[in-house]
């Protein structure tokens, strides 16, 4: 097996096109996870026992089954039930939902890190529920969540490679198509791996940097 530089270079434009799909999917699924994860977290805190119980099991179900199975279900099984979605939408839904389940735990930890005295002060000041969350709880709960949430986004970024199994032409999908056409997998797959690495490494480092900064801030606040 030998590496062909000129062949590898000729693939870069197509693979970068795939990268835009990968990034799109990552951003969309992240946005979805940020919102749905919060809804899951709030649902699991509901006063109503039935609601709490329902959210608990939905989240458990999503977390305890493989994301690939969920993705296949949305793309291949839902059409049988009359719901046909484009491949990228199906993939983003499955990835976003899966990440939401994990994000709900991150939110839970963040919300629980807000001291009891803050809730009591807000109650004593008669702050209405929506403002309580927007102005008092979330501004304090979100910063300590950043490292854990960041790690889930990075996992998500790498998991978008699964989109290639439901016909999406993300980076990995593009590389597989190229391989099918030319029977040369070495260059395209290696390039894809390298691009993932080039993006993930600095992202991981900046998350670690933020983590340190936050724990320093926390010490200062005490």
């Amino acid at each position, binding site marked *: 097996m030998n590496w062909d530089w000129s062949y590898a270079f000729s693939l870069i434009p197509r693979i970068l096109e795939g990268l835009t799909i990968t990034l799109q999917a990552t951003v969309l699924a992240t946005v979805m996870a940020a919102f749905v994860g919060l809804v899951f977290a709030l649902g699991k805190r509901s006063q109503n026992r039935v609601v709490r119980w329902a959210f608990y099991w939905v989240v458990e179900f999503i977390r305890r089954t493989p994301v690939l199975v969920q993705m296949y279900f949305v793309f291949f099984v839902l059409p049988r039930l009359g719901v046909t979605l484009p491949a990228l939408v199906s993939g983003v839904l499955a990835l976003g939902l899966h990440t939401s389940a994990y994000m709900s735990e991150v939110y839970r930890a963040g919300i629980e890190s807000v*001291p009891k*005295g*803050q809730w*009591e*002060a807000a*109650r*004593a*000041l*008669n*702050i*209405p529920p929506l*403002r309580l969350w927007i*102005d*008092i709880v979330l*501004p*304090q709960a979100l910063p300590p969540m950043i490292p854990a949430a960041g790690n889930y986004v990075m996992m998500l970024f790498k998991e978008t490679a699964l989109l290639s199994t439901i016909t999406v032409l993300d980076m990995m999908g593009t590389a597989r198509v190229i391989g099918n056409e030319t029977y040369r997998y070495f260059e395209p797959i290696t390039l894809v791996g390298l691009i993932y690495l080039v993006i993930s490494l600095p992202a991981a480092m900046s998350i670690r940097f933020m983590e340190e900064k936050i724990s320093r801030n926390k010490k*200062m*606040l*005490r």
Partner: protein
Amino acid sequence: MVLDTKRDFIVFDRVEKRFGELVVLKDLSLSIAKGEKVSLIGPSGSGKTTILRILMTLESIQGGHVYIDGEPLWHMRQNDDLVPANEAHLRKMRKQIGMVFQHFNLFPHMTALENISKPPQLSLGVDKASSEKRARELLDMVGLSDKEASYPSQLSGGQKQRIAIARALAMEPKILLFDEVTSALDPELVEDVLNVLRDIGRSTDTTMLLVTHEMSFAHEFSNRVFFFDEGRVIEEGPPDNIFTTPKEERTQAFLKKIIAAGMRID
């Protein structure tokens, strides 16, 4: 129960408070008039703080009734019955009450000014300009005008507590509750906070309830003192009577201990 709304501004009528099996208040009845400055003293665990927390709606009650200005706090009138209060009723009642906590509970992500000006915006819908104007007046009153842009983490305990008092005042409550507001402070910072309380006591007719271990301040500041033990009022009266000629044995024993610990009660 017939209430004289002038004399009976705050009424506890046979109130019971339990935490599971533990009975904290049992058949507690007391009544406080408008504008009174009342100190609640007694050993820790005697239920004094619980009384403030019930008034602030931070703790519910398991029996009896609490009235504020003739209106039930933890119940609502429905036809001729009293039914347990819903959140809307509690919100309405809470408007009249403010609380200052032992550990300040300032919002750490807001500046001193925002801590005072934001709550009226969020809960009363006061506009930003007038709530900030009021907040600056209150900062001036507690002697911290130069700290308006500081975050709580940059303030001393005494400064934090004075901001917390200003925050409670900004809501213009008719009743102010002070829960051991100097207990978490270094001794040299206590006097600054007590001075602010003296100011409020002199300049407003706000009804004030203090849970405190500062006996000398309670003596000087309040017009009435309640001595609690094991969830009951053991003795109540003007501070001179309680502190110099206590009738009950338990009150005498408690004050003896306080004096033995080196605290002044006069």
